[in-house]
Each structure stands twice: as structure tokens, then as C-alpha cells.
């Protein structure tokens, strides 16, 4: 319970009345720091009129202690010695504000993160806590009375990435009446999901469930769909971002092309001969192409590195002739748009692990070793083989081996489990058997099927007679040690459940490659001022309680760019990110920090050092009076001008020299 110690000392008129509240934080602080002693000590400090302790200051009753003392006039400034500003500065500032004074008449002393969590000896910890409290008390005595500022939130949202995550987030926001810019790097939205044939565990056709959403995006009046586009720069602040988007030239006018594909037919290249990126290199396309028939927008693309016109300047260009809409524009150049948005959702997706990094599996060496994504294209009816599963020589496989955990659960590549591969490998086992009648062998370490309907799916595959061998594959080889192995690829693995090594001859090997961050994740994260974790995925604000926000206010995450996940989880995250963005926009404003800079005119010598340094252009210079002045609406409180000013005229609210020095003196006096 709370203990109050009101010292026997009257407060001089106008002098600050400081309340010190020391939190136990359960045992987090009290287990190491002698809280009672800190309270006793605080009560001896100058201007401290109230010193209390409580088990959980951030709770309602805890905050009520502060508010009540303020309302009753016992204190007019508050020091809370507890966790860290990141955790609860906002909480206690609000409590201080509710109590009737400026929320910035508040200072926090972190005696958890900076003391109890990092100090073993209780005596040392208590002394350090006392020193930090003394510092906070001296500082808060000098805090000015500042009003909180609010800035309006721009109601538009930018969604980066047009896969299922970006699509779902965009539709959710657009349906709520917000204007959304959906920027996608490829020439079509759809992401990886558009490449799949069927999805687990329902075996829904991926296109059937995805393309309606893709159409909805294109048709939605609230969505501006920019494909074949990249984000080039981002500046600004939560609620007020300025983004430049670059559009790459297709050499076809998007507003005129209807996707009739007559131009592709007419192209001088009678045979397609360039590897199709959408088909994972298995199929071929012409220099003018559309990635897949349901591409959205349904607009063709010209590849200038393959097109004869661009390479040599000599081509009759029958494509132009064939186009009834006169949509070609070979002079097209890159264009840029600058937009303002209030919130940004990153949904940039993933890439698959490069199986060539594991030479013992034979990818790239033996022709009939495929990745799972390549097999999806074989299975897909719009793929390079029209949905037939064929080996490189055109025959059907009679035995297939599917190798799990390629590039995952391996400290030499990625230590993490990619979460989806067991399920999609079971799915492929089912599909391949159904399509070809082949015997299928899955080689796994553990069978991970935790989602809704997933264990039942595993059961179904078992009943269908798939051969599931628990053992990580050591090698894929064409060495034949027995007649049955001649002409086949042999998979060598220990069947750990039987305790014997098996050599299984197969015609086709499928590698269940894991999920990785996109190759440019580092560049993207810098653009948006967020972090990447050790494995390269974007870092969420909190892995359990804040999975879709980041440490940069106003920037949210959705989908595999945050970590490997399946489609249901991706869609859930996209909805969550949209909801959090909506919350921000509908609130209409964001609370800004009060620590803006200002110029003491008396000390300003007119040297103009600060003016050019300000990254936000927030400093104006009066040429007549030769004085600089900070525009506090634009100022973001970065402190550059304060540090640079040679005469100390530029100062910062809540970080004045006097305040900082007082804090230092507080520590030194009692440390």
C-alpha cells in the first residue's frame, strides 16, 4: 500500500512542489532495490513535498495517486521512479496532465532497465536508484510549463507491396472510405500467391480465391493502383509523410491497353525464347509479354533488354499495327509522383531460399531436381506445361522425392523454421500423386502442422499412402549401387524411425525451399526508417503484443516481410495493420513531442549555422534583424541546431543546458 512521507518543511511561495513516486513493479524493482529507502531518501531532497511508493505505478490506482496529489495541490511536478520512458512516459505524462498541470511537468527515473535489471548487488542498486531520483528531482524543478501539441493526420494511406497482404490491407482501408495508394514493383499484383496452384489445407485454387480480390483492387474507387512502380524516397513524420514514387516505363499506355494480347501474337519473335520470370524460368516469353493471363492491371509490358526495337532500332514493330487501341508509346520514360499520406503499411513479402546453395541436393546439376515454387508452376494450369507434371525430357515421373527443410533449421543457412514448408510439401505430395499417379516420398525432420485443419490434412495425406520418412536427406546422387537405381536419382537419408539408412530411387526431386527476406530488405528498411532483425525480416514493435506496428510511428507491417507465415496469418496481419492505420487516421491527429527547439534572440549572433543544418527546414532567418527563429510547428526536436549553435542561442525545450546540467549534478552529488 502507499506510504506517504510529507516532510516537515514548508514550501516557499512559487517554488516547485515535487512529488516522487517510486514503483515496486512487483518484484522487478523491489526484488533488488530497497524501495522504502529510496522513498525515505527522496523525501529529504529539496522541493520534494510528497514521496510515495506503490506496487504498480502504471496501474489505475497508481496513476490515481499522482492525480489526486496534483488535484489537492500537494504537488505540481511529478517524478516517477519506475521502468523506462519507452514503456510509460506517455502514461505518466497523461496522468500528470489529467491531474491539472502541464503533462511535461514530469520526469522519469528509470530504476528498472537502468538499475534493478542490470545490477546484482542490492546495496549498489539502491544507491544508484537514489542518485537517479536525485537527478530527476533537480531536473524537473526546472521544467517549463508546455502545452501538448497535436498535428493532423493525413487520411490517405500508402501500402507498399501488392501480394495478398497488401491487397487485403488496401481493400480493408478502401472499404472504410480511406484513399489508398497501392504500389507494386512487378507489373502485376498478386505476389507469390498468384503463382500457386492450390493452397493448403482446403486445396482451394489459389487463383480462384485471389483474382476476385485483385479485380476488386482495380475496380475500387478509393484505391490508386500503381504497378511497375517503386518508392524512391520517404520523408516526414507519422501522420504527415511525403513519398516519391517512381513509375517504370512499360512502353504501353496503361489507360489505353485492354489486355487483348494481340500485340504478343503479332510480335516478330514467332517463338517465345526469353525465360519467363513468373514461371520461375521454366517457361518462355517474348520481349512483349504479360506475366499471366489474369494479371492486374491487364496491361502488357515491353522488356527493353529483349525487344529488338530497343536493341537495334530496326524492327517493323507489328505490335503497334496489331493494337486496336493505339496504346503503344515507345518514347515512354520514367515518371514520378509525389504523394502525402498519414500512414504506411509495408507488405513487401519474401523470396524463396536459393537451393543452389546446397550442392549436395543437386539443384542445377541434375536436371530433374526442382524447387517447390517451380513445381507449383508445373502444376498450375496456366503454367509452362499447362498443368502437366513432366520431367525435362517430357515424360511423367513415376516416383517423386520431396525434401523438407531446404535452407531452414540449419545454422549454416537459416536457423529458423520457415513454418509453411511441411504443409506445402504434404500438399505437393497429394497433388503430384493425383496428377501423375507417382509414388511420393517425403523426407522430413519434424512434421509441423499446427494450424486449423492442418493436422487433419496430414492425416488425409497419410491415408492416401504417401511415404513419409523421418530423416533429413544427406544427398541426392546419380551413383547407382544396384540395378534398381540405374537411370534414377537416388535420395540417401537415414530413416530415423526405423534406424536404417535408405537409398530411395526417384525420377524427380522436389526441394521444399524456405522463406527468406527480400534481397533488398536492408534498403527498404532504411527508406522507411525501421529495423531489420538478425535474419533480415522487418522488426515488429513487440513480438507478442504489437506484431504489426514498428518502432517508427505510422509505419506498419503485414505479411511475410515480418517473418515466414502462411496465407491465413498473412491476411490476419494485413487486417490488423489496416485497423491500426485506421485507428490513427480516424483519431485525426497525433500528439507531438514538446521538445522543440527555440532561439534565444539575445544570444543569437546571426551566423546562420543552424539554418542550413535543419533537415526539416524549420528555421527561418530574419535578414533585417539578423536573428534566427524556429518554426515550432515544423520542428521535430532532433537537436541538430542546438548542438551546432556556437553561441548557445539555439536551445531545446525539455533539454535546456540548465536541465541537463541539473541532472548531472544530481547524479554526481549522490552517486
Amino acid at each position: 500500500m502507499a506510504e506517504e512521507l510529507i516532510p516537515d518543511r514548508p514550501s516557499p511561495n512559487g517554488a516547485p512542489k515535487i512529488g516522487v513516486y517510486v514503483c515496486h513493479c512487483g518484484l522487478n524493482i523491489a526484488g533488488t532495490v530497497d524501495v522504502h529507502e529510496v522513498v525515505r531518501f527522496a523525501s529529504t531532497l529539496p522541493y520534494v513535498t510528497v514521496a510515495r511508493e506503490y506496487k504498480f505505478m502504471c496501474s489505475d490506482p497508481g496513476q490515481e495517486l499522482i492525480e489526486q496529489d496534483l488535484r489537492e495541490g500537494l504537488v505540481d511536478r511529478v517524478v516517477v521512479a519506475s521502468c523506462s520512458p519507452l514503456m510509460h512516459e506517455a502514461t505518466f505524462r497523461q496522468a500528470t496532465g489529467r491531474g491539472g498541470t502541464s503533462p511535461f511537468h514530469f520526469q522519469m527515473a528509470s530504476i528498472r532497465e537502468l538499475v534493478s535489471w542490470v545490477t546484482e548487488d542490492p546495496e549498489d542498486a539502491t544507491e544508484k536508484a537514489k542518485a537517479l531520483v536525485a537527478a530527476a528531482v533537480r531536473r524537473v524543478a526546472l521544467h517549463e510549463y508546455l502545452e501538448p501539441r497535436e498535428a493532423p493526420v493525413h487520411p490517405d494511406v500508402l501500402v507498399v507491396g501488392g501480394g495478398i497482404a497488401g491487397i487485403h490491407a488496401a481493400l480493408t482501408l478502401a472499404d472504410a472510405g480511406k484513399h489508398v495508394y497501392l504500389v507494386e514493383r512487378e507489373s502485376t499484383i498478386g505476389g507469390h500467391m498468384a503463382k500457386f496452384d492450390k493452397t493448403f489445407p482446403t486445396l482451394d485454387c489459389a487463383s480462384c480465391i485471389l483474382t476476385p480480390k485483385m479485380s476488386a483492387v482495380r475496380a475500387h474507387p478509393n484505391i490508386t493502383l500503381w504497378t511497375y512502380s517503386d518508392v524512391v524516397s520517404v520523408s516526414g513524420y507519422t501522420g504527415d509523410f511525403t513519398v516519391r514514387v517512381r513509375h517504370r516505363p512499360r512502353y504501353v499506355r496503361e489507360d489505353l491497353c485492354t489486355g487483348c494480347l494481340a500485340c504478343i501474337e503479332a510480335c516478330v519473335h514467332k517463338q517465345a525464347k526469353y525465360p519467363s520470370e513468373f514461371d520461375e524460368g521454366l517457361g518462355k516469353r517474348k520481349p512483349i509479354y504479360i506475366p499471366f493471363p489474369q494479371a492486374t492491371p491487364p496491361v502488357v509490358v515491353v522488356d527493353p533488354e529483349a525487344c529488338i526495337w530497343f536493341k537495334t532500332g530496326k524492327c517493323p514493330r507489328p505490335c503497334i499495327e496489331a493494337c486496336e487501341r493505339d496504346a503503344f508509346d515507345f518514347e515512354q520514360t520514367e515518371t514520378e509522383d509525389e504523394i502525402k499520406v498519414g500512414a504506411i503499411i509495408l507488405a513487401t513479402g519474401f523470396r524463396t531460399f536459393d537451393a543452389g546453395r546446397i550442392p549436395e541436393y543437386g539443384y542445377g546439376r541434375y536436371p530433374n531436381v526442382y524447387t517447390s515454387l517451380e513445381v507449383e508452376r508445373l502444376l498450375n494450369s496456366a503454367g509452362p506445361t499447362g498443368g502437366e507434371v513432366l520431367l525435362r525430357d517430357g515424360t511423367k515421373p513415376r516416383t517423386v522425392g520431396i525434401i523438407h527443410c531446404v535452407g531452414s533449421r540449419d545454422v549454416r543457412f537459416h536457423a529458423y523454421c520457415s513454418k509453411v514448408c511441411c504443409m506445402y510439401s504434404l500438399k505437393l505430395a497429394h497433388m503430384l500423386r493425383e496428377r501423375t499417379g507417382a509414388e511420393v516420398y517425403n523426407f522430413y525432420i519434424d512434421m509441423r502442422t499446427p494450424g486449423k485443419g492442418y493436422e487433419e490434412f496430414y492425416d488425409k495425406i497419410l491415408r492416401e499412402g504417401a511415404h513419409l520418412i523421418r530423416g533429413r536427406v544427406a544427398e541426392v546422387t546419380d551413383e547407382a549401387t544396384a540395378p534398381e537405381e540405374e537411370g534414377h536419382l537416388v535420395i540417401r537419408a537415414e530413416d530415423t524411425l526405423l534406424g536404417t539408412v535408405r537409398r530411395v530411387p526417384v525420377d524427380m526431386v522436389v526441394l521444399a525451399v524456405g522463406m527468406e527476406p527480400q534481397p533488398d530488405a536492408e534498403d527498404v528498411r532504411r527508406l522507411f526508417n525501421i529495423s531489420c532483425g538478425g535474419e533480415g525480416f522487418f522488426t515488429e514493435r513487440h513480438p507478442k503484443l504489437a506484431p504489426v506496428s514498428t518502432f517508427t510511428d505510422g509505419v506498419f507491417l503485414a505479411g511475410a516481410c515480418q517473418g515466414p507465415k502462411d496465407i491465413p496469418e498473412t491476411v490476419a496481419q494485413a487486417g490488423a495493420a489496416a485497423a491500426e492505420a485506421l485507428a490513427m487516421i480516424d483519431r485525426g491527429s497525433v500528439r507531438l513531442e514538446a521538445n522543440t527547439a527555440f532561439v534565444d534572440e539575445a544570444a543569437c549572433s546571426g551566423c546562420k549555422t543552424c539554418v542550413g543544418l535543419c533537415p526539416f527546414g524549420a528555421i527561418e532567418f530574419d535578414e533585417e534583424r539578423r536573428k534566427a527563429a524556429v518554426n515550432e510547428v515544423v520542428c521535430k526536436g532532433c537537436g541538430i541546431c542546438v548542438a551546432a549553435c556556437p553561441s548557445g542561442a539555439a536551445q531545446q525545450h525539455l533539454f535546456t543546458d540548465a536541465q541537463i546540467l541539473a541532472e548531472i549534478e544530481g547524479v554526481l552529488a549522490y552517486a
Partner: protein
Amino acid sequence: MQTATAPRAPIASGSSARIVGRTLGLGGRRGRRRKRWRPPKDGATFQAALDPRFATEIATEVEHGERLFTCIQCGTCSGACPLVGYMDHPPRRIIELVRAGARDEVLTSFTPWVCASCYACTVACPREIPITGIMHALRRRALAEGSYPSRFTNPVMMRELVGMAEARGRSTESLIALKAYLRTDPSQLWKHAATGLRLLRRGRMGFRPASMRDPSTLRRLLEAVGR
């Protein structure tokens, strides 16, 4: 602990089913399919016989040995091992037995002596466990206790090589082989006599023990290092 006499058949032939069959002792001549009855195993006895310190002992004397605790029993080591077919316990199970503390089972196993130290397992392991190093640690203990298979040439050859290397600073291949075969299976000398003679004639074999000029410099170092 060898299984019943298997005929000298050509290399592992046949499908997985036949390999499994032969491993389990099924199959044989004339279609007779009978297993040998074994005394029952008791879970309580097994558990009581485990030594909880064994794993840590082994882990601490091998560089990066503590990684054996991260083994997920994936079996890649066994899958990569060229001699796994001759082992009573595949490498994966040896690691699990070490981790469980089944000291006796591990130190009397043939596996560390069948191991060719080719490091295929170590390179294949997704946890980078130093499996070959662990096999060597098991060999050291087995040698120290005297619990190694008596008719294997490997333990004898290793002792001879290192004994020679430490005493004279050099090892002589022919003498190592000679001593090893004499102690384990003298008939080998006969089998290899022809090849031996050809090597001798071509100057690729000699019986004079090789030696450093001054082995004492090495001996002093080894003494300083201790055991």
C-alpha cells in the same frame, strides 16, 4: 554383438526393403525367416544405468562439443556416413545415447571404430555438431578403459602410429600395418603379401623404422604438454 554370419554378398543390393530386412536379421538362405529371441529390456533398468554427467564430460573435451545438446536427431549424419551400414549404432543414435548418458552402450559400441574419420557427418550436420570429434573422444575413453573390439585393426593401428610418432618423431607405415595385423588377424599378412612384395620392389615400402634426427626435442614438448 555381431549379427549372424552374413554371406560375403556384393555391395548393398536391392531395394530399401531388402536392406531393412537384412538389418533386422530377417532373410537369409533358402527363405528361412527366423529371428533370434533376445532377453527383455526393462525401462527402469535402462534409466537407472544412465550417467547424467557423461554428456557434459564428452562435450567439454571436444572443440564446440556443447553443440551436441542442440542435436535435433535429423539423421543427416547417418545419411552422409559412408560406413553406417557396418555400425551397430548409426552416428545419430550415438549422439542421442551420449546425450542420454548411456555410457556403457556407447563405449562398447563398434561405431567409433568403424568410423573412417572422413568428416562427412560433421560437414553435413545442420547444427554444426563436431560429430567426428565426438567419435574420437569416445575412442579415447574406450581405449583408456580397454573396452574396444579386440579383433579390429583400427585401435591397434592408431596406438602404434601415435606411439611411434611420439617416441621417434616419425611413423613407418609398414611397421604399423605389420604390428596391427599380428595382433588382430595375422591372416591379413598372407592376404597382402603379394601386394607388399610389389611395393617393396618399387621402392614404396621399407621396414627400417623412420626416425627424426633428434626426437628429444619432440619428447620434451610432449612432456611439457602432459596428458
